[in-house]
Protein backbone atom coordinates (compact mmCIF):
# COMPACT_ATOMS: atom_id res chain seq x y z
CA UNK A 1 0.00 0.00 0.00
CA UNK A 2 1.47 3.34 -1.05
CA UNK A 3 0.86 6.17 1.41
CA UNK A 4 0.69 9.78 0.30
CA UNK A 5 0.78 12.81 2.58
CA UNK A 6 -1.32 15.72 1.32
CA UNK A 7 -0.35 18.97 3.01
CA UNK A 8 -3.28 21.35 3.41
CA UNK A 9 -1.86 24.88 3.45
CA UNK A 10 -4.21 26.32 6.07
CA UNK A 11 -5.32 25.38 9.52
CA UNK A 12 -8.83 23.95 9.01
CA UNK A 13 -11.54 22.28 11.09
CA UNK A 14 -12.86 18.79 10.38
CA UNK A 15 -15.67 19.96 8.06
CA UNK A 16 -13.39 22.10 5.98
CA UNK A 17 -10.73 19.37 5.89
CA UNK A 18 -13.43 17.12 4.40
CA UNK A 19 -14.04 19.75 1.72
CA UNK A 20 -10.37 19.36 0.77
CA UNK A 21 -10.49 15.56 0.90
CA UNK A 22 -13.46 15.64 -1.47
CA UNK A 23 -10.93 16.34 -4.25
CA UNK A 24 -10.08 12.62 -4.17
CA UNK A 25 -13.47 11.88 -5.72
CA UNK A 26 -12.53 13.74 -8.90
CA UNK A 27 -9.95 11.17 -9.99
CA UNK A 28 -9.93 7.40 -10.39
CA UNK A 29 -7.14 6.05 -8.21
CA UNK A 30 -8.09 2.46 -7.47
CA UNK A 31 -6.78 0.39 -4.62
CA UNK A 32 -3.26 0.18 -3.29
CA UNK A 33 -2.88 3.86 -2.41
CA UNK A 34 -4.05 5.91 0.57
CA UNK A 35 -4.02 9.65 1.26
CA UNK A 36 -3.56 11.42 4.57
CA UNK A 37 -4.61 15.10 4.57
CA UNK A 38 -2.67 17.13 7.13
CA UNK A 39 -3.23 20.84 7.79
CA UNK A 40 -0.20 23.01 8.51
CA UNK A 41 0.49 24.57 11.91
CA UNK A 42 2.04 27.74 10.52
CA UNK A 43 -0.01 29.63 7.93
CA UNK A 44 -0.73 33.10 6.60
CA UNK A 45 -4.32 34.35 6.49
CA UNK A 46 -4.23 34.15 2.70
CA UNK A 47 -1.71 34.16 -0.18
CA UNK A 48 -1.43 37.74 -1.39
CA UNK A 49 1.97 39.06 -0.27
CA UNK A 50 5.61 38.10 0.15
CA UNK A 51 5.02 37.81 3.88
CA UNK A 52 2.33 35.24 3.17
CA UNK A 53 4.61 33.27 0.83
CA UNK A 54 7.34 33.18 3.46
CA UNK A 55 4.98 31.86 6.14
CA UNK A 56 3.44 29.38 3.70
CA UNK A 57 6.88 28.03 2.72
CA UNK A 58 7.74 27.55 6.37
CA UNK A 59 4.42 26.00 7.36
CA UNK A 60 4.47 23.47 4.54
CA UNK A 61 8.11 22.60 5.19
CA UNK A 62 7.26 21.97 8.84
CA UNK A 63 4.24 19.82 8.00
CA UNK A 64 6.18 17.60 5.60
CA UNK A 65 9.77 17.44 6.76
CA UNK A 66 9.40 14.10 8.50
CA UNK A 67 7.22 12.53 5.80
CA UNK A 68 9.87 10.00 4.80
CA UNK A 69 10.52 8.85 8.37
CA UNK A 70 6.78 8.59 8.89
CA UNK A 71 6.65 6.04 6.09
CA UNK A 72 5.00 8.11 3.38
CA UNK A 73 5.86 7.27 -0.23
CA UNK A 74 5.07 10.71 -1.68
CA UNK A 75 3.96 14.20 -0.66
CA UNK A 76 1.39 16.37 -2.43
CA UNK A 77 1.19 20.06 -1.65
CA UNK A 78 -2.43 21.14 -1.90
CA UNK A 79 -1.83 24.63 -3.24
CA UNK A 80 -1.15 25.94 -6.74
CA UNK A 81 1.43 28.31 -5.23
CA UNK A 82 3.79 25.33 -4.77
CA UNK A 83 4.75 26.87 -1.44
CA UNK A 84 7.28 24.76 0.45
CA UNK A 85 7.94 22.51 -2.53
CA UNK A 86 11.56 23.50 -3.11
CA UNK A 87 12.42 23.26 0.60
CA UNK A 88 10.78 19.86 1.00
CA UNK A 89 12.43 18.53 -2.15
CA UNK A 90 15.83 19.40 -0.69
CA UNK A 91 15.08 17.36 2.41
CA UNK A 92 13.08 14.43 1.06
CA UNK A 93 13.97 11.73 -1.43
CA UNK A 94 10.35 10.71 -1.97
CA UNK A 95 8.42 12.58 -4.68
CA UNK A 96 7.10 16.00 -3.64
CA UNK A 97 4.37 17.12 -6.01
CA UNK A 98 3.42 20.80 -6.23
CA UNK A 99 0.01 21.46 -7.76
CA UNK A 100 1.00 24.55 -9.74
CA UNK A 101 4.09 23.31 -11.54
CA UNK A 102 2.51 19.97 -12.38
CA UNK A 103 -0.76 21.50 -13.58
CA UNK A 104 1.01 23.87 -15.99
CA UNK A 105 3.21 21.10 -17.42
CA UNK A 106 0.25 18.72 -17.74
CA UNK A 107 -1.66 21.47 -19.58
CA UNK A 108 1.14 21.61 -22.15
CA UNK A 109 0.78 17.89 -22.77
CA UNK A 110 -2.84 18.55 -23.84
CA UNK A 111 -2.51 21.77 -25.80
CA UNK A 112 -0.09 24.51 -26.85
CA UNK A 113 -1.17 27.47 -24.71
CA UNK A 114 -2.91 27.55 -21.38
CA UNK A 115 -4.66 30.21 -19.33
CA UNK A 116 -4.84 30.32 -15.58
CA UNK A 117 -8.29 30.97 -14.14
CA UNK A 118 -8.05 32.61 -10.72
CA UNK A 119 -10.61 33.76 -8.19
CA UNK A 120 -9.04 37.17 -7.77
CA UNK A 121 -6.14 39.15 -9.12
CA UNK A 122 -4.23 39.12 -5.85
CA UNK A 123 -3.08 35.57 -6.74
CA UNK A 124 -1.28 36.71 -9.90
CA UNK A 125 2.24 36.69 -8.37
CA UNK A 126 1.85 33.01 -7.43
CA UNK A 127 1.56 32.09 -11.09
CA UNK A 128 4.16 34.45 -12.53
CA UNK A 129 6.72 32.98 -10.11
CA UNK A 130 6.21 29.41 -11.36
CA UNK A 131 6.03 30.52 -14.99
CA UNK A 132 9.36 32.29 -14.58
CA UNK A 133 10.93 29.25 -12.92
CA UNK A 134 9.77 27.02 -15.75
CA UNK A 135 10.77 29.50 -18.46
CA UNK A 136 7.40 28.85 -20.08
CA UNK A 137 6.00 32.37 -19.98
CA UNK A 138 5.39 32.34 -23.70
CA UNK A 139 3.09 29.34 -23.39
CA UNK A 140 0.76 31.10 -20.95
CA UNK A 141 -2.01 32.78 -22.93
CA UNK A 142 -3.32 34.74 -19.96
CA UNK A 143 -4.00 34.90 -16.26
CA UNK A 144 -7.58 36.01 -15.67
CA UNK A 145 -9.54 36.30 -12.49
CA UNK A 146 -13.22 36.33 -11.61
CA UNK A 147 -12.54 39.27 -9.29
CA UNK A 148 -14.23 37.50 -6.36
CA UNK A 149 -12.64 37.17 -2.95
CA UNK A 150 -11.90 33.52 -2.14
CA UNK A 151 -12.59 31.73 1.14
CA UNK A 152 -9.85 29.24 1.96
CA UNK A 153 -11.97 27.55 4.64
CA UNK A 154 -15.44 26.91 3.23
CA UNK A 155 -14.14 27.12 -0.38
CA UNK A 156 -17.11 27.71 -2.71
CA UNK A 157 -19.85 26.26 -0.49
CA UNK A 158 -23.04 28.32 -0.58
CA UNK A 159 -21.60 30.57 -3.28
CA UNK A 160 -22.09 28.25 -6.24
CA UNK A 161 -24.76 30.34 -7.95
CA UNK A 162 -22.78 33.51 -7.51
CA UNK A 163 -19.35 32.14 -8.44
CA UNK A 164 -19.75 29.39 -11.05
CA UNK A 165 -21.24 31.51 -13.88
CA UNK A 166 -18.63 34.23 -13.36
CA UNK A 167 -15.85 31.65 -13.54
CA UNK A 168 -17.36 30.23 -16.72
CA UNK A 169 -17.59 33.66 -18.36
CA UNK A 170 -14.01 34.42 -17.36
CA UNK A 171 -12.76 31.08 -18.65
CA UNK A 172 -14.57 31.64 -21.95
CA UNK A 173 -12.72 34.94 -22.34
CA UNK A 174 -9.45 33.01 -21.88
CA UNK A 175 -10.47 30.73 -24.74
CA UNK A 176 -12.09 33.23 -27.09
CA UNK A 177 -10.04 36.38 -26.53
CA UNK A 178 -6.68 35.03 -25.36
CA UNK A 179 -6.73 31.88 -27.49
CA UNK A 180 -5.98 29.50 -24.66
CA UNK A 181 -6.51 25.91 -25.68
CA UNK A 182 -6.30 24.57 -22.11
CA UNK A 183 -7.44 26.20 -18.86
CA UNK A 184 -5.81 25.56 -15.49
CA UNK A 185 -7.81 26.18 -12.32
CA UNK A 186 -5.79 28.71 -10.38
CA UNK A 187 -6.34 27.20 -6.95
CA UNK A 188 -7.15 23.91 -5.31
CA UNK A 189 -9.78 25.89 -3.36
CA UNK A 190 -11.72 26.18 -6.63
CA UNK A 191 -12.08 22.43 -7.15
CA UNK A 192 -15.83 22.44 -6.47
CA UNK A 193 -16.31 24.43 -9.69
CA UNK A 194 -14.32 22.01 -11.82
CA UNK A 195 -17.10 19.63 -12.91
CA UNK A 196 -19.41 22.57 -13.76
CA UNK A 197 -16.72 24.19 -15.89
CA UNK A 198 -15.52 20.95 -17.51
CA UNK A 199 -19.05 20.26 -18.78
CA UNK A 200 -19.39 23.69 -20.34
CA UNK A 201 -15.98 24.68 -21.69
CA UNK A 202 -14.85 23.79 -25.21
CA UNK A 203 -11.31 23.05 -23.97
CA UNK A 204 -9.86 20.82 -21.25
CA UNK A 205 -9.68 22.30 -17.76
CA UNK A 206 -7.05 20.97 -15.36
CA UNK A 207 -8.08 20.38 -11.73
CA UNK A 208 -4.71 20.76 -9.98
CA UNK A 209 -5.37 18.92 -6.70
CA UNK A 210 -6.70 15.66 -8.15
CA UNK A 211 -3.96 15.81 -10.79
CA UNK A 212 -1.31 15.75 -8.07
CA UNK A 213 -2.88 12.71 -6.38
CA UNK A 214 -2.74 10.76 -9.61
CA UNK A 215 0.78 11.97 -10.45
CA UNK A 216 1.94 10.93 -6.98
CA UNK A 217 0.71 7.45 -7.81
CA UNK A 218 2.49 7.58 -11.18
CA UNK A 219 5.74 8.73 -9.55
CA UNK A 220 5.62 5.87 -7.06
CA UNK A 221 4.98 3.35 -9.85
CA UNK A 222 7.73 4.83 -12.02
CA UNK A 223 10.12 5.02 -9.07
CA UNK A 224 10.92 8.58 -10.14
CA UNK A 225 11.61 11.48 -7.86
CA UNK A 226 12.95 15.02 -8.18
CA UNK A 227 16.58 15.70 -9.06
CA UNK A 228 19.12 15.96 -6.26
CA UNK A 229 21.13 18.30 -8.47
CA UNK A 230 18.20 20.68 -8.94
CA UNK A 231 17.28 20.46 -5.25
CA UNK A 232 20.54 19.95 -3.31
CA UNK A 233 20.42 18.73 0.26
CA UNK A 234 21.16 21.36 2.91
CA UNK A 235 24.62 21.49 4.48
CA UNK A 236 23.29 22.45 7.87
CA UNK A 237 19.68 22.12 8.77
CA UNK A 238 17.97 21.45 12.06
CA UNK A 239 14.54 19.87 11.80
CA UNK A 240 14.19 20.47 15.54
CA UNK A 241 14.35 24.20 15.02
CA UNK A 242 11.54 24.14 12.48
CA UNK A 243 9.55 21.78 14.70
CA UNK A 244 9.82 24.27 17.55
CA UNK A 245 8.51 26.95 15.22
CA UNK A 246 5.61 24.64 14.41
CA UNK A 247 4.75 24.40 18.10
CA UNK A 248 4.87 28.18 18.33
CA UNK A 249 2.80 28.51 15.16
CA UNK A 250 -0.10 26.60 16.64
CA UNK A 251 -0.66 29.50 18.96
CA UNK A 252 -0.76 32.17 16.29
Amino acid at each position, binding site marked *: MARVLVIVPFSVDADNLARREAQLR*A*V*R*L*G*EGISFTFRPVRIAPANYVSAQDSLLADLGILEAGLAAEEEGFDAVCIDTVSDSGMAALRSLLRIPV*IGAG*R*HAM*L*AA*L*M*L*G*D*RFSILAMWDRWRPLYTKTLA*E*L*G*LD*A*RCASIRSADLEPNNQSLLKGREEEVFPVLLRTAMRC*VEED*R*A*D*VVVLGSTTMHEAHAYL*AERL*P*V*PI*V*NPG*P*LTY*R*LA*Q*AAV*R*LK*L*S*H*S*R*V*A*YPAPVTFSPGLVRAMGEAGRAG
Partner: protein
Amino acid sequence: MPRILLIEPWASEAGASPFAEQGDAAMPVALDPGTEIVRRPTRLAAASVGSAPEALLLDLAVYDAGLGAEADGFDAVYVHHAADPGVAALRSALSVPVLGAGRPAMFYALTLGSRFSVLASDPAMATRLGKAIHDGGLKVACASVRALDGGDLRGDAALEGARLSVEADGADVIVLGSTRMVDVAAALSGRLGVPVVDPGPVGLALLESFLALRLRHSRRAHPEPMVRKDALVRALVDAVAEPRARDA
Protein backbone atom coordinates in the same frame (compact mmCIF):
# COMPACT_ATOMS: atom_id res chain seq x y z
CA MET B 1 -11.98 -0.31 -17.60
CA PRO B 2 -9.89 1.48 -20.20
CA ARG B 3 -8.68 -0.16 -23.38
CA ILE B 4 -5.55 1.49 -24.72
CA LEU B 5 -4.26 1.02 -28.25
CA LEU B 6 -0.46 0.99 -28.11
CA ILE B 7 1.06 1.70 -31.51
CA GLU B 8 4.56 0.40 -32.12
CA PRO B 9 6.00 2.31 -35.06
CA TRP B 10 9.11 0.17 -35.38
CA ALA B 11 7.66 -3.25 -34.76
CA SER B 12 8.85 -4.69 -38.05
CA GLU B 13 12.43 -4.55 -36.84
CA ALA B 14 13.04 -7.97 -35.39
CA GLY B 15 13.41 -7.92 -31.65
CA ALA B 16 13.14 -4.15 -31.47
CA SER B 17 10.09 -4.09 -29.25
CA PRO B 18 10.95 -4.01 -25.56
CA PHE B 19 7.86 -6.12 -25.04
CA ALA B 20 8.64 -8.66 -27.75
CA GLU B 21 10.76 -11.02 -25.74
CA GLN B 22 8.67 -10.84 -22.61
CA GLY B 23 5.22 -11.18 -24.11
CA ASP B 24 2.15 -9.04 -23.70
CA ALA B 25 2.09 -9.23 -19.93
CA ALA B 26 5.34 -7.30 -19.56
CA MET B 27 4.46 -3.64 -19.57
CA PRO B 28 7.16 -1.16 -18.64
CA VAL B 29 5.25 0.28 -15.68
CA ALA B 30 2.62 -0.99 -13.26
CA LEU B 31 -0.79 -0.27 -14.72
CA ASP B 32 -4.21 0.11 -13.15
CA PRO B 33 -5.85 -3.24 -12.63
CA GLY B 34 -8.24 -3.68 -15.51
CA THR B 35 -6.37 -1.52 -18.00
CA GLU B 36 -6.15 -3.45 -21.23
CA ILE B 37 -3.32 -2.75 -23.66
CA VAL B 38 -3.65 -3.84 -27.27
CA ARG B 39 -0.37 -3.58 -29.18
CA ARG B 40 -0.51 -2.82 -32.86
CA PRO B 41 2.51 -2.50 -35.14
CA THR B 42 2.42 -0.01 -37.97
CA ARG B 43 2.07 -1.42 -41.48
CA LEU B 44 4.99 0.68 -42.64
CA ALA B 45 8.21 0.85 -40.66
CA ALA B 46 10.91 3.48 -40.75
CA ALA B 47 14.43 2.60 -39.74
CA SER B 48 15.20 6.23 -39.00
CA VAL B 49 13.30 9.45 -38.41
CA GLY B 50 16.19 11.86 -38.86
CA SER B 51 15.15 13.27 -42.22
CA ALA B 52 11.94 15.00 -43.15
CA PRO B 53 10.74 12.38 -45.65
CA GLU B 54 11.37 9.52 -43.25
CA ALA B 55 9.55 11.39 -40.50
CA LEU B 56 6.67 12.10 -42.86
CA LEU B 57 6.24 8.44 -43.77
CA LEU B 58 6.33 7.45 -40.12
CA ASP B 59 3.65 10.04 -39.37
CA LEU B 60 1.51 8.42 -42.06
CA ALA B 61 2.24 4.91 -40.79
CA VAL B 62 1.14 5.78 -37.26
CA TYR B 63 -1.90 7.70 -38.48
CA ASP B 64 -2.95 4.65 -40.50
CA ALA B 65 -2.52 2.38 -37.49
CA GLY B 66 -4.56 4.57 -35.15
CA LEU B 67 -7.21 6.38 -37.12
CA GLY B 68 -9.81 3.70 -36.51
CA ALA B 69 -9.11 3.47 -32.77
CA GLU B 70 -12.23 5.28 -31.64
CA ALA B 71 -14.49 3.27 -33.92
CA ASP B 72 -12.79 0.12 -32.67
CA GLY B 73 -13.82 0.98 -29.11
CA PHE B 74 -10.48 2.10 -27.70
CA ASP B 75 -10.51 4.65 -24.90
CA ALA B 76 -7.06 6.06 -25.68
CA VAL B 77 -4.12 5.76 -28.05
CA TYR B 78 -0.49 5.61 -27.01
CA VAL B 79 2.24 6.08 -29.61
CA HIS B 80 5.24 4.26 -28.22
CA HIS B 81 7.96 6.34 -29.84
CA ALA B 82 10.04 9.23 -28.53
CA ALA B 83 9.59 11.34 -31.66
CA ASP B 84 5.78 11.36 -31.31
CA PRO B 85 5.18 10.33 -34.93
CA GLY B 86 1.59 10.70 -36.07
CA VAL B 87 0.45 12.10 -32.73
CA ALA B 88 -0.65 15.46 -34.09
CA ALA B 89 -2.61 13.86 -36.95
CA LEU B 90 -4.28 11.33 -34.63
CA ARG B 91 -5.19 14.08 -32.17
CA SER B 92 -6.93 15.99 -34.95
CA ALA B 93 -8.95 12.95 -35.98
CA LEU B 94 -9.77 11.33 -32.63
CA SER B 95 -11.69 12.53 -29.60
CA VAL B 96 -10.17 9.95 -27.26
CA PRO B 97 -6.85 10.95 -25.63
CA VAL B 98 -3.77 10.44 -27.80
CA LEU B 99 -0.30 10.68 -26.28
CA GLY B 100 3.20 10.04 -27.56
CA ALA B 101 6.28 9.21 -25.55
CA GLY B 102 8.39 12.20 -26.58
CA ARG B 103 7.23 15.65 -25.66
CA PRO B 104 5.31 14.50 -22.54
CA ALA B 105 8.57 13.00 -21.22
CA MET B 106 10.30 16.36 -21.60
CA PHE B 107 7.55 18.22 -19.78
CA TYR B 108 7.57 15.51 -17.14
CA ALA B 109 11.32 16.01 -16.72
CA LEU B 110 10.57 19.60 -15.71
CA THR B 111 8.42 18.35 -12.85
CA LEU B 112 11.60 16.72 -11.48
CA GLY B 113 14.22 19.36 -12.18
CA SER B 114 14.88 22.59 -14.01
CA ARG B 115 17.08 21.65 -17.00
CA PHE B 116 17.05 18.38 -18.87
CA SER B 117 19.39 16.76 -21.37
CA VAL B 118 18.22 14.33 -23.99
CA LEU B 119 20.32 11.25 -24.62
CA ALA B 120 19.39 10.21 -28.14
CA SER B 121 19.89 6.72 -29.51
CA ASP B 122 21.65 7.97 -32.66
CA PRO B 123 22.49 11.24 -34.46
CA ALA B 124 19.37 11.10 -36.63
CA MET B 125 17.12 10.85 -33.59
CA ALA B 126 19.09 13.66 -31.95
CA THR B 127 18.29 15.87 -34.93
CA ARG B 128 14.61 15.03 -34.76
CA LEU B 129 14.38 15.55 -31.01
CA GLY B 130 16.28 18.83 -31.27
CA LYS B 131 13.56 20.03 -33.61
CA ALA B 132 10.86 18.83 -31.21
CA ILE B 133 12.52 20.77 -28.40
CA HIS B 134 12.71 23.90 -30.52
CA ASP B 135 9.14 23.61 -31.78
CA GLY B 136 7.85 22.87 -28.30
CA GLY B 137 9.33 26.09 -26.92
CA LEU B 138 11.54 24.04 -24.62
CA LYS B 139 14.96 25.30 -25.65
CA VAL B 140 15.31 27.40 -22.53
CA ALA B 141 14.86 24.32 -20.35
CA CYS B 142 17.06 22.00 -22.38
CA ALA B 143 20.74 21.74 -21.40
CA SER B 144 21.78 19.60 -24.38
CA VAL B 145 20.92 16.84 -26.81
CA ARG B 146 23.63 14.19 -27.04
CA ALA B 147 23.67 11.23 -29.39
CA LEU B 148 25.15 7.92 -28.37
CA ASP B 149 28.17 6.99 -30.47
CA GLY B 150 27.23 4.67 -33.28
CA GLY B 151 23.83 4.04 -31.79
CA ASP B 152 25.40 1.95 -29.03
CA LEU B 153 22.49 1.39 -26.68
CA ARG B 154 24.49 -0.52 -24.08
CA GLY B 155 24.81 0.89 -20.63
CA ASP B 156 28.49 1.88 -20.57
CA ALA B 157 28.40 4.10 -23.64
CA ALA B 158 25.27 5.75 -22.35
CA LEU B 159 26.74 6.32 -18.91
CA GLU B 160 29.52 8.46 -20.34
CA GLY B 161 27.06 10.55 -22.39
CA ALA B 162 24.82 11.02 -19.40
CA ARG B 163 27.74 12.04 -17.17
CA LEU B 164 28.79 14.69 -19.67
CA SER B 165 25.21 15.95 -19.86
CA VAL B 166 25.20 16.51 -16.11
CA GLU B 167 28.77 17.64 -15.51
CA ALA B 168 29.52 19.61 -18.68
CA ASP B 169 26.09 20.69 -19.88
CA GLY B 170 24.42 21.38 -16.55
CA ALA B 171 21.47 19.01 -16.81
CA ASP B 172 19.73 17.99 -13.62
CA VAL B 173 17.45 15.43 -15.31
CA ILE B 174 18.22 13.01 -18.16
CA VAL B 175 15.55 12.16 -20.73
CA LEU B 176 16.22 9.09 -22.84
CA GLY B 177 15.59 9.84 -26.49
CA SER B 178 14.13 6.50 -27.45
CA THR B 179 11.63 4.00 -26.13
CA ARG B 180 14.13 1.27 -27.00
CA MET B 181 16.65 2.25 -24.33
CA VAL B 182 15.20 0.10 -21.57
CA ASP B 183 18.63 -1.42 -20.85
CA VAL B 184 20.15 2.05 -20.69
CA ALA B 185 17.53 3.18 -18.21
CA ALA B 186 18.36 0.23 -15.99
CA ALA B 187 22.12 0.78 -16.33
CA LEU B 188 21.95 4.48 -15.51
CA SER B 189 19.48 4.17 -12.70
CA GLY B 190 21.09 5.19 -9.43
CA ARG B 191 24.54 5.81 -10.97
CA LEU B 192 24.17 9.45 -11.96
CA GLY B 193 22.68 11.28 -9.03
CA VAL B 194 19.95 12.70 -11.25
CA PRO B 195 16.64 11.16 -12.32
CA VAL B 196 16.47 9.32 -15.64
CA VAL B 197 13.18 9.66 -17.51
CA ASP B 198 12.50 6.64 -19.68
CA PRO B 199 9.87 7.96 -22.10
CA GLY B 200 8.02 4.70 -22.68
CA PRO B 201 6.84 3.99 -19.15
CA VAL B 202 6.45 7.69 -18.31
CA GLY B 203 4.17 8.33 -21.28
CA LEU B 204 2.03 5.33 -20.47
CA ALA B 205 1.67 6.39 -16.82
CA LEU B 206 0.72 9.91 -17.94
CA LEU B 207 -1.87 8.61 -20.39
CA GLU B 208 -3.46 6.52 -17.64
CA SER B 209 -3.45 9.61 -15.43
CA PHE B 210 -5.26 11.66 -18.06
CA LEU B 211 -7.84 8.88 -18.45
CA ALA B 212 -8.35 8.78 -14.69
CA LEU B 213 -8.90 12.55 -14.67
CA ARG B 214 -11.07 12.48 -17.80
CA LEU B 215 -8.67 14.81 -19.58
CA ARG B 216 -7.92 14.73 -23.26
CA HIS B 217 -6.06 16.89 -25.74
CA SER B 218 -7.54 20.26 -26.58
CA ARG B 219 -9.72 20.55 -29.66
CA ARG B 220 -8.60 24.17 -30.01
CA ALA B 221 -4.95 23.12 -30.25
CA HIS B 222 -5.83 20.15 -32.44
CA PRO B 223 -8.73 21.11 -34.72
CA GLU B 224 -10.65 18.39 -36.55
CA PRO B 225 -10.29 17.88 -40.28
CA MET B 226 -13.32 19.14 -42.19
CA VAL B 227 -13.16 16.08 -44.42
CA ARG B 228 -11.81 12.79 -43.12
CA LYS B 229 -9.77 10.86 -45.67
CA ASP B 230 -9.56 7.51 -43.95
CA ALA B 231 -10.03 5.48 -47.12
CA LEU B 232 -7.31 7.42 -48.90
CA VAL B 233 -4.89 6.93 -46.01
CA ARG B 234 -5.60 3.22 -45.94
CA ALA B 235 -5.16 2.97 -49.72
CA LEU B 236 -1.85 4.81 -49.61
CA VAL B 237 -0.49 2.40 -47.04
CA ASP B 238 -2.12 -0.64 -48.71
CA ALA B 239 -0.24 0.23 -51.87
CA VAL B 240 3.15 -0.28 -50.26
CA ALA B 241 2.64 -2.34 -47.10
CA GLU B 242 3.33 -6.04 -46.72
CA PRO B 243 0.17 -7.94 -45.79
CA ARG B 244 0.12 -8.44 -42.04
CA ALA B 245 -2.37 -8.99 -39.27
CA ARG B 246 -3.40 -5.64 -37.84
CA ASP B 247 -3.25 -6.59 -34.19
CA ALA B 248 -0.19 -8.16 -32.66
